[in-house]
């Protein structure tokens, strides 16, 4: 990481920021952040960004969050889907957006995006072309 805030304020600098890939294309929002207790040092480390409606729903909590997570689960083909987890080592910089070192194609396509592409949008003529 070359460009980073000092100190890193997790709520201010990370949570709810847009994640963009190396080309600047949107990947998702930082819906939560993974913290890990390092067993060797006993210290708490920031290890990954988590993204997806289910993570967001769990973070919001309550009935509203439950609803959001529930919808995300229902739209998902797998029973207990893992959230999109982006290791912090893939983060290039933290600015007005969180920029990754990788291209979005290297990340799993969000299930809803893929499902809509296969079942709905992709079937409409012209879906594969940008505007004329």
């Amino acid at each position, binding site marked *: 990481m070359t460009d980073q*805030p000092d100190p890193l304020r997790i709520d201010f600098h990370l949570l*709810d*920021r*847009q*994640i963009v890939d190396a080309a*600047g*294309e*949107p*990947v*998702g*929002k930082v*819906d939560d952040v993974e913290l890990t207790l390092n067993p060797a040092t006993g210290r708490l480390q920031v290890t990954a960004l988590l*993204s997806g*409606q289910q993570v*967001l729903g769990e*973070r*919001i909590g309550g009935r*509203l969050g439950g609803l*959001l997570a529930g919808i995300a689960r229902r739209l998902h083909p797998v029973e207990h889907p893992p959230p999109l987890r982006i290791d912090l080592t893939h983060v290039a910089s933290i*600015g*007005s*957006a969180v920029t990754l070192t990788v291209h979005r194609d290297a990340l799993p396509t*969000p299930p*809803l*995006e*893929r499902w*809509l*592409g296969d079942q*709905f*949008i*992709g079937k*409409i003529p*012209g*879906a*594969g*072309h*940008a*505007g*004329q």
Partner: protein
Amino acid sequence: MKRVFAVTLGILTAIGGFVDIGDLVANSETGARFGMRLAVVVVIGVIGICVYAEMCGRVAAISGRPVFDLVRERLGPKAALANLTGSYLVTLLTLAAEIGGVALAIQLASSVSYLLWVPVAAFAIWVALWRVKFETLERVFGLVGLALVVFVIALIQLQPDWAALAGDATQLSPPDGEDWGTYGFYAVSLFAAAMTPYEVFFFSSGGVEEGWTAKDLLTSRMNVFVGFPLGGVLSLAIMGCAAVVYQPLGVQVDTLAQTALPVGIALGKIGLVVVILGFFAATFGAALETGLSSGYTVAQYFGWQWGKRVAPRQATRFHTVVIISVLLGVALLLTTIDPIQLTEYSLVFSAVVLPLTYLPILVVANDRAYLDDKVNGPLANTLGIIYLVIIVVVAVAAIPLMILTGVGQ
């Protein structure tokens, strides 16, 4: 030379794109009932949208982040979700009103009921959103929307007593036969027509999508500071035409045909053709903007890929939201609700949700972590705070005034 051309084109587009169904309805209604006594609200509203859009344009150019992205960042997920719900519903209401406006404009040219045109118009709007390049859309409908300049010509042709109109404009009170409640209600509608939330969703998302940088700030500011005030002149001309033709007869305006009539009276058939074309372009253009904005708000909240720069296959969730929104708009219109009434409601609720999107932008526009040395100066902040107060007052007053006056009856 090329730069001058681009700037001119941008300004012309901003003028033509300023007026939408809300401005057409609110300005002709108030002109007929209050003469020019609410003209000052149009001026206040236009300055407001200039202040707001300039901040959004600057934030978009420097930080690369559109409005709703920042709304979630500053408000947190819960408050922003409530905001998203409100903003989305208002945008949807406005989208329905604009589709209704397109259908009404075609009815004026065909005498076939607008209800039959609603699905046709909606399909055309969706095809444009699906296939046509963003820039092309903005340019074509902005430029054709300039046809509404015909209201200025019509007003001159009607040879009004200019001194009386100007005198009217300085009277900040309701005329005989109207009370303060309705005066206040229409003031809210006019303000909301000038400062509609979707305008900034669209403006800032467009800026991000076109990849604005600090170099584009000048162009963006010219569009805002020249284009919007000239668009406001069109609004005032619409108001003036209604005031001259209808107020002496005690006629209240509640159809789009009535809005067009002063132009027909002043300029005859050609004027009428031009004004109907202007209605069509203005509402069609605004339907495109609101359709896109419905997708922008949802996609930017969740961080999805959005916009027209990529193929629909690359932004399936965004395009799905747009399609669903257009369909919901059509469904709403097919309940046979009067599109003009729908417009009135959309304006009231626009006023209610505006503070929630305005405040985060005002805060971010002061944050050097986003804007570096391009943060608000003292002038932008003074105006920003004055307008924050106005916007909050209008938002709080909007629904009580609507109930108190029975939607201005």
